[in-house]
């Protein structure tokens, strides 16, 4: 299941010139607003005719301007979840969900996947309701279900969480995780949020001013300050682990590379594989194992690289049993500790620095297990 896009198009004085491939899993088109992410996704959905493009899905040509091929949107089987939901106001929730089904399977066909999808998205109680009085989160769940029931070969999610507040985002994200893990439909996910990248992305395409400026695994992109909209302040590392136990005081123990990491605010059951986003600015470095410190997580590691960053800052990359950990420090601290390649030290992470939004269930097909190298 591969989507391949090669496209040039100009909108007034903004020009789009991008090439990328999206394999199975969730591919995030990542970048600032105005970078051309949504336009690129729109071209795949067939919402406009690009000036010059070749777009194919599973080897099937959707657009080839040279050969004058343009498959209309309704014959692409590309489902869309839009930022604004776009539920049909004259239909109730059930009718909205079934709208695409009859075009995909014919009028007589029974929607065999209706009940599982309704159940997965928790929509049972909403089926007979109208759409105008749904909350933002409910609307997006219905929009997602509606797109899935049209049996898409590819799902496009265009900033599906952008219109929601933080609490609602946390409600919807797990559904996308389940989608990735259980249904196996490739997803092109448009986002400007690093935390969504960390939680969902199997692959990230970074866009700026209509061009692809980088691509790779989420952990590689989030570790590269020049690819992130926030520069150094957005840099983060991603650690893969497994939930071990939840202690009586509310702290959850997650095993990461053989070491326990203590986190708060995870409701996930023991045994769940998770991936954690650790912002580089939330990591402290100590040369000796600190004593009398409140922080619960002290991880030994070895400095792999010191990279000069913005202004007075720098990014230090540590190799630890848990994986690669990034720390953002001032150059003054780096001089004071005399950090350089090969220095043995400890990374210190406060439990509360890893918030609920930074913790994601990780899918079976997404390999986030850290390399088991202990330095």
């Amino acid at each position, binding site marked *: 299941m591969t989507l391949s896009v090669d496209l040039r198009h100009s909108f007034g004085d903004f020009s789009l010139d991008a090439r990328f491939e999206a394999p199975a899993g969730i591919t995030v088109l990542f970048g600032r607003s105005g970078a051309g992410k949504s336009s690129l996704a729109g071209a795949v959905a067939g919402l406009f005719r690009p000036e010059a493009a070749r777009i194919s899905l599973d080897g099937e040509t959707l657009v080839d301007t040279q050969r004058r091929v343009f498959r209309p*949107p309704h014959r692409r089987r590309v489902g869309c979840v839009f930022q*604004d939901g776009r539920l049909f*106001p004259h239909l109730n929730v059930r009718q909205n969900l079934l*709208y*695409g089904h009859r075009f995909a399977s014919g009028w007589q066909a029974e929607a065999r996947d209706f009940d599982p999808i309704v159940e997965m998205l928790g929509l049972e109680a909403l089926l007979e309701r109208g759409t105008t009085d749904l909350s933002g989160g409910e609307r997006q769940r219905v929009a997602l279900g509606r797109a899935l029931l049209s049996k898409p070969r590819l799902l496009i999610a265009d900033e599906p969480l952008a219109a929601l507040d933080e609490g609602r985002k946390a409600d919807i994200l797990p559904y996308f995780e389940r989608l990735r893990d259980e249904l196996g439909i490739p997803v092109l996910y448009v986002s400007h949020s690093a935390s969504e990248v960390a939680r969902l992305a199997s692959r990230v395409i970074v866009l700026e001013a209509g061009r692809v400026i980088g691509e790779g695994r989420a952990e590689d992109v989030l570790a590269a300050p020049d690819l992130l909209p926030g520069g150094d302040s957005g840099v983060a590392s991603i650690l893969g682990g497994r939930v071990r136990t939840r202690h009586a005081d509310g702290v959850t123990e997650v095993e990461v590379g053989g070491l326990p990491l203590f986190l708060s605010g995870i409701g996930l059951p023991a045994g769940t594989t998770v991936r954690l986003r650790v912002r580089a600015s939330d990591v402290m470095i100590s040369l000796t194992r600190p004593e009398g410190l409140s922080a619960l997580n002290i991880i030994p590691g070895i400095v792999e690289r010191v990279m000069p960053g913005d202004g007075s800052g720098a990014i230090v990359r540590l190799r630890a049993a848990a994986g690669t950990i990034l720390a953002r420090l001032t150059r003054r601290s780096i001089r004071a500790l005399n950090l350089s390649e090969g220095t043995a030290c400890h990374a210190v992470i406060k439990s509360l620095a890893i918030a609920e939004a930074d913790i994601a269930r990780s899918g079976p097909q997404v390999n986030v297990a850290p390399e088991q190298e202990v330095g």
Partner: protein
Amino acid sequence: MDWLGPQEWQAVRLSLQVAAWATLLSLPPGVWVAHLLARGQFPGRSVLNALVHLPLILPPVVTGYLLLWVFGTQGPVGAVLEQFELVLAFRWTGAVLAAAVMAFPLLVRAIRLSIEAVDPRLEQAGASLGASPLAVFATVTLPLALPGILAGMVLAFAKSMGEFGATITFVSNIPGQTQTLPTAVYAFLQVPGGEASALRLVVISVVISMVALLGSEFLARRVSRRGRVS
């Protein structure tokens, strides 16, 4: 209906018949042209728009004369239709055509506005779910524009009831055959002692117009409440 004389009663009945046929027959082309004007991008769009609105601006007598010229038994279209035994000039069927042409701009205008009020992003959503352009039109655009379509039909019906100039020019004013409510009022006012009959017809037409206007107003208000993404 004892208080209406046979000629008055005939005029009212013929007017209702003409208005109903004119509204129904102009509805499909009206929806089509309205959709074309609301969503279409093609050369000659403004020419089509002007053509549709022409009967609104031209003196009705001129429109009636043009109809006679084109659809009369000697006219280019009328001569062809006559071979199929369809005669329009000086028949009630011609009154239907005159009323339909005169009401067309009002019908198209109301439907066009209601189609323009439908969020095109909903139509995109329909297409992304596998609906062909025709299916999107039938399942998204049309239902959302329905109140406006009904409002346009009400207006077109009322306009058809009241059409005078084009009708009298094209099909004349033959009692029992082409005499509609307004031409009957005119005829009664031409003869001594006809004021009472005229007044009765005036009351009927005022009532019909008021009902039509209130109905269209009510439906227009429903349009503005629907058809957007909230």
